[in-house]
């Protein structure tokens, strides 16, 4: 593609004049053809649709066949582990090299290399040493902004996708800090790494920055967060799962029992937006972009949240924004809580040993007032792994071999190795052939290797009772309500003022939900948001639609 010469837009003019937005937004960025575009504060966008020559040719891996097929983009389900695991990688991919890897980790830090036999085991299988430097997942954005600005990256660095979207001018950072993987992986070159070539094309396209394939994707389940509820406790109380918002409220009032240290709810603001039908970010109708904050549906969701806070149905620790929601939920002190969907099997891992009847389920997806919900799909790749610039070509090949190993899907020997360690040491297979971590495994096994490469998403944890059937059933129902996002497949870096205007508004929403401000305050806050960057963002996003011919 050719580079457009920058033309003086209003934005650029202001930037040159040293006033106003300072966002020197060159149209070249919009056309996704630029490696140097975009001044400070400008957004940028690149489209995934036209990048086929840059991504690996898809080579499906012939693995175990799923028991429950995922519909409407939902992940497949496996109700049991295979009796014989497939050996997907014949030789250890490493040549004795040693690499550092930085990834966020949600949960306690495992013992480090040298004191951790799980690392030793997987490194031996890899034929190379990967040393992890874990960041606290909850504060990873603070760290990553500084790490990027200080250019202090590890040989392998994993970024959650939402972090990439928040780091200013990541599209510039990526070219300066990380190796261009296009020559190693584009087209048929990827045949050397068949498990990487097995990954979904959309996820690969999502990792093209500035016309170069930069990252290795982590294909994700379509939905990131939803409301989990304690199905065991609800059944004990003789109640059924809610079917609409009023029902949810009524159940909340019934189960709320502060005298006995039990509250109904945690915070589930984001899920309520979807139930009330607000868009994830923009809704495109009749040539106009309407932001989520400007929709009645969003407002209705805020009103509903205000209602449950007012009624005292939310645990006071959560009202005070405590970060102990998981503990409250697992110990039955709240019964409904929004969390990452992965929290479901994590809580089983922690709780089932002591409490075999412990059961969690995802709250069924329903709409409000007879309408359908609008489920917000995540981006096709939930996180990306980048290789530090400056490695020798042989080292890059070795690293990609390691990532290929860690991309082995469910049902392979390699998957069991990097997820559950050595059989008989870190895990034992139970009567159904499913892995159960030993005490040693529970202390040492971690998600490090799982996070430095991706694999097709699947629902596999059949070691937990009812988990696979319940989760696949929920997904196959929920996925049919997926939103049609006008910007699907376009990676957009938000303009700085647009991003900056959001904090005051979300602060105000917290104030309203928690009863510190009246609902009317929302009108003012939204008006301020429009003025301080919202309208600017609308113009920018409209420009993106036009550039991509989607208007």
């Amino acid at each position, binding site marked *: 593609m050719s580079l457009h010469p920058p033309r003086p837009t209003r934005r650029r003019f202001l*930037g040159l004049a*040293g*006033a106003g937005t*300072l966002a*020197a937004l060159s149209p070249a960025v919009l056309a996704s053809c630029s490696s140097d575009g975009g*001044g*400070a*504060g400008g957004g940028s966008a690149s489209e995934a649709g036209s990048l086929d020559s840059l991504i690996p040719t898809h080579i499906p891996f012939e693995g175990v066949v799923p028991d429950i097929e995922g519909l409407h983009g939902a992940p497949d389900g496996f109700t049991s582990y295979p009796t014989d695991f497939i050996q997907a990688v014949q030789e250890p991919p490493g040549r004795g090299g040693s690499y550092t890897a930085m990834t966020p980790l949600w949960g306690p830090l495992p013992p480090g290399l040298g004191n951790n036999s799980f690392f030793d085991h997987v490194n031996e299988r890899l034929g190379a040493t990967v040393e992890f430097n874990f960041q606290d997942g909850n504060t990873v*954005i*603070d760290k990553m*902004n500084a790490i*990027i*600005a200080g*250019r202090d990256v590890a040989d392998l660095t994993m970024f959650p996708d939402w972090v990439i979207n*928040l*780091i*200013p*001018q990541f599209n*510039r*950072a990526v070219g*300066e800090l990380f190796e261009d993987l296009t020559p190693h992986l584009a087209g048929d070159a990827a045949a050397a790494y068949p498990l990487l070539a097995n990954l979904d094309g959309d996820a690969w396209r999502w990792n093209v920055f500035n016309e170069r394939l930069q990252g290795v994707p982590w294909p994700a389940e379509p939905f990131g967060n939803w409301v989990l509820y304690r199905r065991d406790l609800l059944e004990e109380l003789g109640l059924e799962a809610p079917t609409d918002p009023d029902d949810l409220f009524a159940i909340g009032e019934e189960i709320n029992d*502060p*005298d006995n*240290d039990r*509250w109904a709810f945690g915070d589930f603001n984001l899920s309520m937006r979807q139930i009330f039908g607000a868009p994830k970010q923009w809704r495109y109708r009749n040539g106009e972009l309407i932001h989520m904050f400007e929709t009645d549906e969003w407002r209705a969701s805020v009103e509903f949240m205000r209602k449950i806070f007012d009624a005292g149905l939310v*645990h*006071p*620790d959560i*009202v*005070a*924004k*405590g970060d*102990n929601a998981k503990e409250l939920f697992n110990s039955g*002190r709240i019964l409904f809580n929004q969390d990452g969907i992965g929290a479901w099997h994590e809580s089983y891992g922690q709780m089932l040993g002591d409490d075999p009847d412990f059961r969690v389920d995802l709250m069924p997806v329903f709409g409000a007032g007879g309408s359908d919900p609008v489920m917000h799909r995540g981006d096709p790749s939930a996180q990306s792994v980048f290789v530090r610039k400056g490695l020798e070509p042989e080292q890059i090949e070795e690293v990609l071999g390691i990532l290929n190993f860690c991309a082995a899907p469910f049902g392979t020997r390699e998957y069991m190795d990097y997820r559950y360690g050595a059989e008989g040491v870190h895990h034992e297979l139970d009567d159904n052939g499913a892995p159960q971590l030993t005490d040693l495994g529970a202390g040492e096994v971690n998600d490090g290797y799982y996070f430095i490469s991706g694999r097709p998403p699947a629902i596999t944890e059949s070691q937990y009772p009812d988990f696979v059937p319940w989760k696949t059933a929920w997904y196959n129902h929920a996925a049919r309500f997926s939103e049609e996002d006008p910007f699907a497949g376009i990676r957009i870096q938000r303009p*700085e003022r647009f*991003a*900056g205007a959001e*904090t*005051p508004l979300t*602060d105000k929403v*917290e*104030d309203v939900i*928690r009863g*510190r401000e009246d609902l009317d305050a929302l009108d003012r806050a939204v008006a301020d948001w429009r003025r301080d960057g919202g309208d600017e963002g609308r113009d920018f996003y409209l420009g993106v639609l036009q550039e991509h011919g989607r208007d």
Partner: protein
Amino acid sequence: MTERATAVAPAPDRPSPPARRRGTGRPGRGASLRARWRRDRSLLLMTVPAIGLLAVFHYVPTLGNVIAFQQYNPWDGVVGSPWVGLYQFERLFTDPRFWNAVGNTLVIASVQLVFFFPVPIALAILLDSVLSRRMRLVLQSIVYMPHFFSWVLVVTLFQQILGGAGLISQSLRGAGYAPLDMMTNPDAFLMVVTSQMVWKDAGWGTIIFLAALAAIDQNLYESAAVDGAGRWRRMWHITLPGLRPVIVLLLILKLGDILNVGFEQFYLQRDAFGSGVSEVLDTYVYHQTLVTGNFSAGAAAGLIKGVVGLVLILIANKMAHLMGEHGVYRRS
């Protein structure tokens, strides 16, 4: 700190510090530069490592403040980023949220000054009056301890005691009364953060005062007792004057630091109490700049803080001189 504190504490042979300083001059004042160099060179040499550290870690980074006048981004560097004059300052000064943060910071700082600052002094005098050495060590260790807890822990602890599902609320509920949730009530914010601060750091703050107390000549107490001075009189006429230079010094430093009320404590409780009361300058800078990557606005806010702090220190120092104290420094 301790050295500095004892250095300004009065020498034992000069029990009445005020009034005599002016005009005494220092020995060697007026000697030629070369003579002074010859006399002081080994001392000056000894300061080189400290000056080196200061230069590398303070003065050189200070130059980075130029980005406050730029629209800086790390990829173009200081050299390549566009200059925007005072735009960043304009932007701050026209943002009502900035003024809200400044207001909150000043209110919190004043409350700290009135309700937190005197606590370590009182505590130090109290500890100093404990005669049993062993007992004193035990007590000191206990009051120091919370200083080593992180803010996360302190906030959690307070939440578990004063929060809506905390110890007090649940006890009240059990006894049939209405619960008391102080941890989300904006009106209780100042009280809560000040109590947290006292609990966490009052003990730690006694260290300097204890050192100053140790420097007071015990003979003075004995002579005063012989002259019939009671406990209160001894405290008023010996202990407090002995502490005065340190108190003034710390007060000046505190004033210079007045826009730094802390970050973590407020960051952690910002959403619980709402940004209306809990947003301070540091959290404002964090949310407005670091999260969105606008380093220049952050540098501008930092520069404003620095300038305000400097002006306050100069004023306070002048005041100290007028009161006859040394203050932080004095032109010789």
